[in-house]
């Protein structure tokens, strides 16, 4: 069986699945239930200074759904913990004592003043938890008070606060980054410059999830008004994967440990984060949707895949996809693929045809010899993959590579055996400059 034991900046856990700092980790009761279920670690919901903040008394969440009301994206306007600091600290201490083999990290958010950070770090150290995560990410409620994303959007502040924290504590310091910026490498570089042991990302994305058309008000609606919230869940995974990969690939931050967050719902999602450079993952929305029991599927699924593929431990998959992440101009333009429709598994819904006919390249038939039949017209197919993505039957349509030397009926030319990218392409006006 694959070894899922994990060591993240010195913090050990039996598996790489931690619960993210969020409602599921706000209380001892919840965290103990999670550890009983099998979660490898938890980042305690963000602590602030007393007097503790208050939350709205109305709805805190909104959502978007797929078919059969499957939750795809969740938006929240909840703030950091709304319980007294002492209560949280006592519970953190109690949980760590009872569960020494699990990772327990405390998330923090206090004003950008050195004594504030020094004071709370001393209190957190007393709990004997494993580390701290600096919440520079929350996009709502706290950022307007100069905290959360307001810090995460200014690399100089990130560096400054990170340095304060590293100076004041022996504990590992993880800096949690906001995606609400144009280039996530800058805050990551700042965290590293400040001495961070690791970064974690992404926090939630600023969003209005929906509008109540009767009240003409954003949802969730509080007494007729709404505000932007933080967006998370399966829908944000692609954004998170890209940000994780771009930090992992950046020369300035290469080697900086990353805790991957954003829409992890299945073991496969987690594996994708790990191969793009995350060392572990943090999960929230999936647990809030299905409960803590999903940890069984996450752990067993990852183990099974690793066993089947012959990956003995997490190190052997960490960052394995990074060498294959490149810039567009380095993609091989001589690579040629055509869609192929397996007629045996085709159910004849015609979605591939209409998608291609209305919105793309008119490369799929709807009728052959008077029969309803969907076939690819190689003369028109550019290999775009839209048909694959709209087909309701998995693996019914596949993209098949044309071997070198075969005729591409669309271009009328044979497929070149050579690698040729945009920087070498005759149509590229910058080509000469590059040479």
């Amino acid at each position, binding site marked *: 069986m694959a070894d899922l034991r994990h060591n993240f900046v010195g913090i050990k856990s039996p598996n790489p699945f931690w619960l993210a700092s969020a409602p599921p980790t706000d209380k001892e009761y919840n965290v103990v239930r999670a550890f009983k279920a099998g979660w490898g670690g938890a980042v305690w919901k963000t602590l602030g200074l007393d007097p503790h903040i208050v939350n709205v008394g109305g709805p805190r969440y909104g959502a978007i759904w797929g*078919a*059969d*009301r499957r939750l795809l994206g969740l938006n929240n306007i909840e703030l950091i913990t709304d319980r007294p600091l002492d209560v949280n600290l006592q519970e953190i201490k109690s949980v760590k004592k009872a569960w020494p083999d699990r990772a327990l990290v405390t998330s923090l958010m206090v004003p950008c003043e050195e004594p504030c950070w020094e004071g709370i770090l001393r209190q957190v150290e007393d709990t004997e938890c494993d580390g701290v995560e600096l919440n520079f990410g929350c996009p709502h409620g706290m950022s307007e008070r100069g905290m959360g994303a307001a810090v995460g959007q200014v690399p100089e502040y990130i560096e400054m606060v990170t340095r304060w924290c590293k100076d004041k504590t022996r504990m590992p310091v993880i800096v949690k980054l906001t995606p609400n910026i144009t280039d996530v490498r800058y805050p990551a570089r700042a965290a590293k410059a400040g001495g961070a042991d690791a970064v974690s990302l992404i926090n939630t994305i600023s969003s209005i999830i929906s509008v109540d058309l009767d009240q003409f008000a954003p949802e969730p609606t509080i007494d007729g008004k709404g505000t932007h919230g933080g967006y998370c869940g399966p829908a944000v995974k692609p954004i998170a994967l890209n940000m994780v990969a771009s930090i992992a690939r950046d020369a300035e931050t290469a080697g900086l440990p990353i805790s991957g967050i954003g829409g992890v719902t299945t073991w496969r999602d987690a594996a994708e984060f790990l191969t793009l450079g995350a060392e572990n993952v943090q999960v929230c929305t999936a647990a809030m949707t299905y409960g803590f029991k999903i940890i069984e599927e996450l752990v067993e699924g990852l183990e099974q895949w690793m066993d089947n593929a012959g990956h003995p431990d997490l190190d052997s998959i960490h960052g394995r996809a990074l060498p294959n992440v490149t810039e567009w101009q380095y993609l091989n333009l001589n690579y040629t693929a055509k869609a192929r429709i397996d007629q045996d598994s085709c*159910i*004849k*819904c*015609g*979605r591939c*045809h*209409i998608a291609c006919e209305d919105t793309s390249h008119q490369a799929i038939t*709807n009728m052959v010899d008077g029969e*309803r039949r969907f076939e690819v017209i190689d003369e028109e197919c550019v290999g775009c993959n839209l048909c694959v993505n709209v087909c*309701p*039957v998995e693996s019914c349509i596949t993209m098949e590579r044309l071997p070198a030397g075969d005729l591409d009926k669309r271009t009328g030319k044979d497929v070149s055996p050579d690698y040729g990218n945009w920087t070498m392409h005759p149509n590229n006006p910058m080509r000469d400059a590059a040479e």
Partner: protein
Amino acid sequence: MVDRYLEDGVIEGRLDSDLYEQNFADAHPPLDPHEALVAADRCYFCYDAPCVTACPTAIDIPKFIRQISTGNLEGSARTIFDQNILGGMCARVCPTETLCEQACVRETAEGQPVQIGLLQRHATDHAMKNNLQFYDPAEDTGKTIAVIGAGPAGLACAHRLAMKGHKVVIHDANPKAGGLNEYGIATYKSVDQFAQHEVDYVTAIGGISIVNDSRLGDNLTIDGLLDEHHAVFLGIGLGGVNALGAETDSDDISVNAVDFIAELRQAEDFAKVAVGRRVMVIGGGMTAIDVGTQARLLGAQDVTIAYRRGRDNMNASSAEQDQSSAKGVNIRHWMQPVEVTKSGSGSLNVKMEFTTLSEGKLTGTGKFETVEVDQLFTAIGQTLAAGEAIGSIAVEHGRIRVDETFRTSNPSVWAGGDCVAGGDDLTVTAVAQGRDAAEAIHAALVT
């Protein structure tokens, strides 16, 4: 269980009274809003959707289902009624398993089609319960049309004519409008007086009047109607029944299944409908299934449907056959009655001969079995009963001959529904033909 359950003879009140209510409840209860959303989510919104092609009225099914899934029930109902103003009844009685749902790609994919019929009912029920009317008559054309028969074909024709601005007078032979929807559909397929509600809903557009107890041939003639109206539409169905092809010692030895179904539909108290303990039904269509199943539901202990050919030859769909079997009806194939005699006790001895195919032709085997029953139903097809009443209008294969616009050999007379040749005896087909005949009449009158 009451004692009467085991009594021989054709008697009333075989069951406890509360059992009747249970037995004749809605066969396919409506979807609740959540169920409808789950069912609607399964639709793939196919291109040139096979379900639409399979629907005789060509309802835009993917569109109306998408409208359900986006919370637009009103728009969904309109999409249905645009093509089929009797979409409510069709949602109840269509053999969807051989039409739209058979064609559904999810039937191909996983053997579980989208529940199109129930979704159609969900949308149309919403509109009809709230009496949402979507159509107004066009400006009065000054033309009037007589429609004979207030069944599915006649109602669909009348509604489309009214939309076009024509005035319509419907004559119907029965005391109530609705035709087979009112008199011919199994009771559990159309509960709570739905057929009458639908007549009211359809005629609410205005410009349509209905004259009941007015039969073609009695006081009405086609020539007389054409004196008063600009056109006539015949939606007269099939009033006659085929005779039992067996030797009998009296004429009233068997019961016409069509009459029995009508009696049951009109019954105010099911306990007052007499049924035998041992019942045999001769036939293989939907009528045979409906009468056999309902005989069981009335308390018949032993019901056999005897059909002279095999299961696949039956006009009743396999789903209908299965539902009937599930109610305890015994369907026997490859046998036909040759002689029926009455015993001293009043029971009937039905001598059946087993049949087979010989060089593609149905023949007797010379092997016999005699079955003793209390009641014998015939459900062996219907015939055009109008006879002389339709005058010189041409008939082929026993039904009225029409062209592709449903015009008869009399250029001022159109026809549709079961009475015309070439149909499939379905409610939904009658609706399609009535609607299309109305378009043809309109085109002929205003151009």
